[in-house]
């Protein structure tokens, strides 16, 4: 009996420890976009493929925005000035969010830079891509078209 009580208590302690290590990020900005297809992109200024993806994401936003696509690019730089310089050079025409603590990145289990998550109109993450190169872009676009067509 005593053994069970001790082990239960240990599990409880473990749970408390894990809960303390992970705080839930505020996703209200994403929830507000429900009903739209969201291309959620995680990027940083030091990441070269991210730089390549920005003009493409500009094209996406202008081509599919009216059909219900929103591009949201989450910056993961630790220094805000680095991000600002990058943004000044690449002039994105879509929503930029800043996540220097990596809360969103942790939640979406970002495995590499850049990582993009395509979220459907009901708010489910449907496709995840790690890395970016222009050869894959057509495939991503096809997935976005597919999700836009769903009602």
């Amino acid at each position, binding site marked *: 009996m005593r053994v069970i*009580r001790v082990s239960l*208590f240990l599990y409880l302690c473990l749970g*408390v420890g894990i809960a*303390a290590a992970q705080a839930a990020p505020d996703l209200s900005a994403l929830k507000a976009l429900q009903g739209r297809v969201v291309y959620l992109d995680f990027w940083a200024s030091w990441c070269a493929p991210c730089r390549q993806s920005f003009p493409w994401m500009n094209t996406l936003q202008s081509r599919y925005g009216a059909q219900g696509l929103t591009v949201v690019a989450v910056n993961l730089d*630790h220094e805000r000035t680095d991000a600002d310089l990058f943004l000044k050079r690449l002039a994105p025409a879509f929503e930029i969010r800043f996540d220097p603590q990596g809360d969103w990145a942790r939640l979406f289990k*970002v495995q*590499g830079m850049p990582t993009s998550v395509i979220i459907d109109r009901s708010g489910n993450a449907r496709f995840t891509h790690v890395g970016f190169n222009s050869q894959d872009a057509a495939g991503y676009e096809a997935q976005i078209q597919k999700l836009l067509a769903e009602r």
Partner: protein
Amino acid sequence: MSIRIMMACLVAMALLSGCSSLGVEPWQRDLLSRRDMLPGGSRLDDAIDDHLYFSKEASSGGRSFGGGGCGCN
């Protein structure tokens, strides 16, 4: 269970699970690549380390296989 054991368990398990969130995440690579994170970030430190190494290991040849043995180079 005495309070003391319970507290010890709490601390031990909190520390144990603390290790589950260790490691560098992909988006933290900018911190890793900072100049002051390089192993040879400071030239003065490097020079001192090298001098210590060279002097201490001189008896077995220092940085090379040639020479050595006397500890005087």
